[in-house]
């Protein structure tokens, strides 16, 4: 990661926080505006999941990583705490790669 990217990330993330603080009272978010911001997180998270699970360099692939994410999903479904979910996903992927 370049330091330029890190600076952009830090500035961008703070921009939203301080922007909201400074415009409170002057700016009122419309109903749809509020909904959009609330829906952005699940939409982008699921996009990230798809890309990081199936993207094998510009095409959809099933790999050891996919199997690991699937077992992580099962662990999530069984209400395992996050560190356990991550451990299950990583261990499954590592095991398949080892075989």
């Amino acid at each position, binding site marked *: 990661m370049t330091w330029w*990217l890190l600076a952009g990330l830090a500035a961008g993330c703070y921009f939203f926080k301080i922007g909201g603080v400074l415009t409170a009272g002057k700016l009122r978010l419309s109903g749809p505006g509020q909904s959009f911001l609330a829906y952005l997180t699940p939409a982008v998270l699921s996009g990230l999941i798809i890309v990081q699970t199936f993207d094998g360099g510009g095409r959809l692939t099933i790999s050891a990583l996919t199997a690991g994410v699937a077992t992580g*999903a099962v662990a999530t479904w069984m209400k395992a705490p996050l560190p356990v979910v991550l451990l299950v996903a990583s261990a499954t992927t590592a095991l398949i790669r080892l075989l």
Partner: protein
Amino acid sequence: MGERLKAFWSRQHRRDGFLLGLAVGTFGVTFGVLSVSAGVSGLQAVMMSLLMFTGASQFAAVGVVSTGGDPMSALGAALLLAARNGAYALSMSQVMPSGRGSRLIAAQLIIDESTAMAEAQDNLGEVREAFWITGLSVFFFWNLGTLIGVLVGGVVGDPFAWGLDAAFPAGFLALLVPHLKDRNKRRAAVIGAVAAVVTVPLLPAGFPVLLAALGAVIATRVKGRNG
């Protein structure tokens, strides 16, 4: 335990805020470990937690960088996930201090956890306390956790052999699940996923994640139509 500490500890919103920070600290450890294994330097990971201080965006940026995405897509994905903090900031204006310097600090503490804990309280005094205690507790433990994770992660070795690349999407999935209870958020997630699936083979790396934001656009329109 001293009397004053006991009195402080006797209020549930204070205890909850503190303990939530402690729990989030374990995610901080995970962030530190994954960052250094993904090729982000330890110093950079620590700086990200201090300066960005919003978990999903941090994981997204590191995740995109680790899979060879370009800086602009890492920035785009991270900022799309950070936008909701702007909405939180609007609703937290009542707890913001009046001094300019303390406002700048308080703004950095506006995240999922501090907003949720503050909004769960009944009167303004408790709202304010819940915001500050949760925000500061999460800030302290998130950064401490990141530091520990960076130190531990440095000795892990080859992250690929440990399957650590699977931890990113599995973690995003765990973050996504609480959203799926709401029908419109579920719709946004499904459309976002479909947009990503369709565009992975068609567009350069990075764009599919940005296009997933279409899910939010369409879910907003559908909600507008259905009322």
